[in-house]
């Protein structure tokens, strides 16, 4: 399974803080983004950062592995 986490404004738009998705062999980050953005277009309007296993990533062709933790995040506003 792949664990997808949402926080703050994104969680509010998705209506959930966490989703679990089956990990399909050969699955890439882009496929996960496409799947979720089709289901929750309003939330993806504000997704600016993606982290895989707590490290920010920019390459959406990154292959995903079973047990990965993905976070789809709005711009940060701490401090």
């Amino acid at each position, binding site marked *: 399974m792949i664990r997808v986490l949402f926080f*703050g404004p994104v969680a*509010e738009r998705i209506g959930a803080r966490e989703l679990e998705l089956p990990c399909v062999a050969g699955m890439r980050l882009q496929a996960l983004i496409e799947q979720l953005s089709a289901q929750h277009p309003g939330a993806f309007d504000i997704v600016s950062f993606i982290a895989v296993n*707590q490290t920010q990533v920019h390459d959406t062709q990154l292959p995903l592995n079973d047990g990965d933790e993905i976070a789809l*995040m709005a711009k940060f*506003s701490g401090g």
Partner: protein
Amino acid sequence: MNKPVRIQQEDFSQDAEIAALKASSLRIGGIATFLGCARDFSEGRDVSEISFEAYGSMALAEMNKLRAEAIATFKLIDARIVHRVTTVQAGDNIVFIAAAAEHRAAAFDACRWIIDELKQRVPIWKKEITPQGEAWVTPHP
């Protein structure tokens, strides 16, 4: 002694953080600090409370990286970063940064760099609670 990088609900003591820094070395010649606190007014509206949410594990890891990078880049002797994640009222403390160096220039530069980078890199979000309703904050440059 508390860890130098923390995310916590409870308030912090600037005196305790500075004392911890000073205890780390007698070579410190200057400590620059930044205290972020909650305003009661934002974007033309009264703000009664600010609620924070964090991706805790990643936020803490990023803050530890920031501290290590600041120490290496500015040749600091030590640095501390504490961010509260809870609901605060106007006037309450939010974030504290202290940078200790042999001389003031490095301490000032590092302190400014750390808070600027924290805002860009650390996954924490704030929601302002106003009499008219609640709104997640859109970051300023």
